[in-house]
């Protein structure tokens, strides 16, 4: 019988036996972990959308009004959040469908970022660009999983003073962003995981885009009846 054969020879090759078993059990564990984390990601995305449903509609509508007046969108963040900011800007500027609007990430140009970082300090890399680019009909969206990034907060304050619509995406307890008076809207994703927060930021940004698109598709004189 097979069972007996395995039993009778396995002691000769203990390492082969155990490593094969371990690799399979590791792969099973990894797959189960992936499903758990994915389920948490989906739960958090849905919970965040539910929690901020009204505010997302209000913010997206206000963004649409500004785009209709020729407003532009600036997005910014650090590290992985800077790449998510760039993805969000691309969603607005070259969506797979719908109307494109002017939008870009303030971390995208390495000449500008390194010039500012080197000459005036890292905490001013976004603020100085807001000073250079911003008009009062524009929109600023800052993404920070901690809500505490100094370079983002100074840029938000500058943007608010210049009449921009200011939106923050934060995480954990929202940090300084949660209590920043210069933010018109702050969407804090309540999680301790930077990864899960970033995944929810993307979904919240997508909702803002969807709302803005819907409003830009309506006739102006019928929009407020």
């Amino acid at each position: 019988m097979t069972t007996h054969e395995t039993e009778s020879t396995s002691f000769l090759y203990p390492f082969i036996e155990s490593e094969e078993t371990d690799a399979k059990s590791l792969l099973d564990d990894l797959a189960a972990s992936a499903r758990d984390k994915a389920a948490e990601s989906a739960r958090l995305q849905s919970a965040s959308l539910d929690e901020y449903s009204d505010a997302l509609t209000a913010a997206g509508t206000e963004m649409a009004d500004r785009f209709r007046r020729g407003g532009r969108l600036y997005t910014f963040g650090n590290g992985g959040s800077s790449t998510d900011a760039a993805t969000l800007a691309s969603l607005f500027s070259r969506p797979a469908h719908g109307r494109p609007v002017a939008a870009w990430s303030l971390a995208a140009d390495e000449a500008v970022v390194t010039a500012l970082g080197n000459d005036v300090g890292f905490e001013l890399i976004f603020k100085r660009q807001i000073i250079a680019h911003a008009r009062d009909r524009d929109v600023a969206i800052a993404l920070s999983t901690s809500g505490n990034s100094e370079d983002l907060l100074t840029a938000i304050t500058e943007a608010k003073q210049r009449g921009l619509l200011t939106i923050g995406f934060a995480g954990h307890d929202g940090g300084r962003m949660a209590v920043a008076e210069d933010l018109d809207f702050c969407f804090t994703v309540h999680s301790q995981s930077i990864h899960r927060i970033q995944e929810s930021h993307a979904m919240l940004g997508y909702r803002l885009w969807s709302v803005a698109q819907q409003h830009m598709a309506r006739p102006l004189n019928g929009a407020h009846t």
Partner: protein
Amino acid sequence: MTITARPGGSFVDADLSADLAAAALDLARRFHDGATLWVISPQWEPHAHHVAVEFVHPVIMGKRALPSVALVEPDPVAQARVASQPGDLLLAVASADEPAVVDAMRRAQAWGVLTLWIGSGPRPPAGAANHILWIDSDDPMVPATGTFVLMYHLLWELTHVCFEHPGLLKPSPDECAEDVCVTCGDEGRVGEVVLEPADTTPQALVRTAKGEEWVDVSMLGDLKPNDLVLIHAGAAITTLESDQQEVTR
């Protein structure tokens, strides 16, 4: 218009989670052997940057920094060709019909590079990459809803779990059973022409998964640098067409 996108996590079923697990173990093994992870995403460059920063500067303190670089120049194939060395890793975040990625994935065999492909929509043909991590959704907005972000976050998280199992970081025992294996068996190997033959000899310098070698190309007509050839017993026996494979569902 869809105002609510499907959460990315809901796509991670038994099959996809198993694909992610297998990919993570291969990633960890290659990193363990000194690999660099090259990342391309011609349609969505920020995803390439996000993968690179994820591995280079982990969000969890104490996790080791791993070499990963986003290749975002206008010709990512040329960039990946010169950057990659045998044993390295190439990850693409792209749809199945992205020409530069289709091309890079084919050539990776000649470069000796293990390939991973994250995307959505119609799938690439089976075998187009060593690991195909796919979201089966026709929604064109998937790349902007955090779903790809979730995929490479999971890949990073699982890869670091593998490092806690050093005994399992040796090459998988069934590696030589795969049809992409070039170190054993009598199968043809894919090579990429580095130097065309000089006038007097029928030998071309060809890059394969094992490194560079001079190969008899007298059976073939004119060859140019970067042409793909199939090598058998020291000779190039045919040129591989550069026509893209058809995308299948």
